[in-house]
């Protein structure tokens, strides 16, 4: 059976409900909370990520997706909670230790070093086996490791259409090119689990398609992928399983096909019009379903039912602030 079908088959028997147990979880999260002032950004009771699968993580703006990534990868400290990677506790580890264990993430707001070249940013992403392990040093002499890293960097840059930019400073890249570098850099580490935070936002649609094929091939070679994304076409195309967060908690889980029939997901996130084209007449007035959408938006603006706005749902009370985030 091809790898993708095997993954789907393994998940076929999983109950489509929040916190569902998976047949072979690689990451298991328990009772994780994180509050900022009065706002509970993350409050996840139980979550399992299936090994070797692509798990899509979706939810409204401010749902806590990035904060959950920050916690799991050691970039932020939880109020409470534990999580295990491959059976071993991962909480409390510093980010570089988490990465060395094989759990690597990308940042939604990209983190490349602007004053270094694109190629050097890639090389910095590579594991430095020679320096870190005595046996590694015996097996791979310095030069050979360097050469292998550089070759690998070049291969990835070609795939991400950044090869022409290899010697340019990362700070001179376009918005989409920065996203591409962020993801390519993470792949330099040969992660066991890769957590991608909106990697395709700002990447042009044609290149997105080719990169999604690449991510699937990584999955087929055994990599576990967690993928945050707001583009539902991407989510439907790539996910073996989807987890939906809202207001810090997991509100739904299931196979991607089940999303649009889940009322909670439609109400909190997708909206009733998400897979319809927007339509306007020659004067620019909304017609058909787009007109319905506008009517809904206006009724919300007039205060008819403010609880229905996604922003009102996804944020808490006004609160003092705790400084800048990582």
């Amino acid at each position, binding site marked *: 059976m091809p790898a993708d079908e095997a993954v789907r088959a393994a998940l076929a028997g999983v109950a489509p409900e929040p916190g569902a147990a998976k047949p072979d979880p690689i990451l298991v999260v328990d009772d994780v909370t994180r509050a900022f002032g009065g706002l509970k950004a993350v409050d996840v009771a139980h979550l399992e990520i299936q090994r070797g699968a692509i798990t899509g993580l979706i939810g409204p703006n401010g749902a806590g997706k990035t904060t959950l990534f920050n916690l799991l990868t050691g970039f932020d400290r939880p109020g409470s909670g534990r999580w295990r990677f491959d059976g071993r506790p991962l909480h409390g580890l510093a980010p570089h230790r988490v990465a060395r264990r094989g759990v690597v993430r990308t940042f939604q707001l990209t983190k490349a070093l602007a004053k270094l070249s694109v190629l050097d940013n890639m090389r910095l992403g590579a594991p430095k086996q020679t320096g870190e392990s005595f046996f590694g040093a015996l097996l791979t002499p310095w030069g050979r490791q360097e050469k292998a890293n550089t070759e690998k960097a070049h291969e990835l840059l070609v795939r991400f259409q950044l090869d022409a930019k290899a010697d340019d400073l990362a700070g001179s890249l376009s918005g*989409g090119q920065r996203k591409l570098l962020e993801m390519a850099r993470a792949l330099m580490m040969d992660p066991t689990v890769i957590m991608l935070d909106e990697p395709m936002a700002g990447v*042009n649609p044609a290149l997105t398609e080719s990169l999604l094929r690449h991510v699937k091939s990584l999955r087929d070679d055994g990599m576990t992928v967690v993928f945050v994304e707001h583009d539902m076409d991407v989510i439907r195309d790539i996910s073996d399983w989807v987890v939906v967060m809202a207001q810090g908690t997991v509100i739904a889980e299931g196979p991607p096909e089940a999303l649009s029939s889940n009322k909670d997901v439609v109400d909190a*996130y997708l909206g009733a019009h*998400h897979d319809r084209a927007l339509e306007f007449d020659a004067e620019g007035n909304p017609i058909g379903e787009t007109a319905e959408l506008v009517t809904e938006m206006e009724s919300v*603006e007039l205060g008819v039912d403010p609880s229905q706005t996604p922003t009102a749902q996804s944020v808490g009370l006004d609160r003092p602030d705790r*400084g800048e985030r990582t």
Partner: protein
Amino acid sequence: MSTGVEGNTGNAEPPAGQASPAELAARPARHRELAEGALLRGDGLVAGYVPGVDILTGCNFFLREGEIVGIIGPNGAGKSTLLKAMFGLLPVRGGTVALRDSDITAAKAHVLVTKGVGYVPQRNNVFPSLSIEENMQMGVYLRPKTFATRFEVVCSLFPLLGQRRKTKTGSLSGGERQMVAMGRALMMEPSVLLLDEPSAGLSPMLQDEVFVRIKKINAAGVSVIMVEQNARRCLQVCDRGYVLDQGRNAYTDTGSALLSDPKVVDLYLGTLAGSGETH
């Protein structure tokens, strides 16, 4: 970097017989005919960052009063560079920019703001150490007295900005920052709005809302230029669209014509979306 429109990279253009209407319309001669009387136009723009390296290599563009015009194209095509050149953030090395027939090629951004041009950059578009409210005040620094009324208008578009007005924007989520950036540009009540990827990072529901709101802002008299990677949605709301590739115009036509042009679909829109969509 480019998806490769061969005829567009050198001087050799394909013979007119083989070119689609959208390709022909992207050529300079046709541009000059169509751009007559436009509100904002760029003609033969050449611009870049590093001496000797031009990113825009002869770009043509116009926006008529009351229009929404979309710009799409591969990463690194020069879309943000074009907006920056029009908004006086990047020296123009060749060609001209004109607003209501007056030359603004060398005008700086702060001057353009006083002429009613608003701009929302793609990145670093909030002041992270300032609160939401202070960000909005920055947006209206030229006319501080209008703050209260404008803030009310902006909050009706993005209720979050009112609800969390004291929150420092550096702590907001990616999508929340995007709302702050759009809100700030609207504080000045611009008559022309340049938007660099306004829907990026927003949830599907908010993306639709932002596009519908841009349409409403437009109906209220604001002419809009919008760069988008959410290319299908963008072309659905735009009167006209441009495809930029390697610093040059590759195609231009109405939004709906570009959406159904097989070459544009193949090279720039991809096939992932659209299959399930009803048009």
